[in-house]
């Protein structure tokens, strides 16, 4: 009886440790993506969108529209890679510019960038995996 209790106790603890360590490894990965994403953002995005994601007047939209980001999460990889044109409404304002394609960016780099933008400037999307980015890209391939 006593042994059973002990085994049960250790069993539960083991499961708890596993869960905690899983979570933290996910957090570690997210932190890694975020740091790499900041560097990639500075190289590929910051000129236009600004260090605080503030954009520029009505020429370049800001990245601070959290609703837009979370509603269009699956299109962002394609937008970064293939560019954007036409009207879009961000923070209630209409933008009609053109974002150039960055087809040279790899899925890994795009994953970094999405994790950085998605968890900066007021956005909180959490971890966005590379598998998800691959799926997003293959559905927006044309």
């Amino acid at each position, binding site marked *: 009886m006593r042994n059973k209790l002990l085994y049960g106790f250790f069993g539960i603890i083991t499961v708890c440790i596993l869960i905690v360590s899983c979570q933290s490894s996910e957090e570690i990965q997210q932190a890694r993506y975020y740091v790499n994403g900041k560097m990639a953002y500075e190289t590929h995005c910051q*000129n*236009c969108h*600004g260090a605080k994601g503030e954009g*520029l*007047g*009505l*020429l*370049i939209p800001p990245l601070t529209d959290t609703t837009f980001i979370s509603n269009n999460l699956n299109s962002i990889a394609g937008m970064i890679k293939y560019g954007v044109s036409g009207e879009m409404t961000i923070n209630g304002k209409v933008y009609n510019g*053109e974002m*150039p394609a960055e087809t040279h960016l790899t899925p890994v780099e795009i994953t970094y960038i999405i994790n950085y933008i998605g968890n900066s400037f007021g956005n909180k999307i959490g971890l966005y995996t590379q598998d998800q980015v691959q799926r997003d890209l293959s559905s927006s391939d044309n």
Partner: protein
Amino acid sequence: MNKSFLLAAALLILTLCACNSSDQNNKLPILGSREPITKEVDGKTVVDTLYKSIPAFEFLNQDSLPITGKTFDNSIYVADFFFTSCPSICPVMHRNMLKVYNKYKGNDEVMFLSHSIDTKYDTPSVLKKYAEKLGVDGKQWQFASGTKETIYGISPEYMVFAEENDQVAGGYEHQGWFILVDKDKHIRGAYNGTDEKEVDKLMKDMDILLREYEK
């Protein structure tokens, strides 16, 4: 030992004070080439210095109105070279320029002159749309369009490099300098328009330059 230490400390304090106060009556240099000229004053021949100045120009602004050197006669101005479809440094330059513009907005002694180096696509109406989207209205910030000859003819006068180049993104290569010009069309400073610290320095220098015209 103690005495010399005191002396050194006093000297240091004096130097620091001198550095601080010199900011008040600081004068900006006149940049560019200069040559001596001889002229007659009251029957005597004297030698004077001829400083480089921005030559006469004529462009169309965002309202399709002609602008010339005269447009800027009663103000100091900041000049730069850009194009509206520029994918590289222009957004950074104009994000910074906007900061300077907002600081001096309404001050009729300060103007801005952005030359478009894309003489094919950037017509006055394109520049007008660009200015509106940037949040700029009125006459204080002029967006100039011209011919290839006039625009690329004036850029070296501001000591700014610009040329058509198929090899770079956007098709035009240019430097991001902000050039500070005084009321006599002399160049008084050049600042990297993509560097926030240099743009802060530009604003400080503009205050120093404006002080020259205070009576």
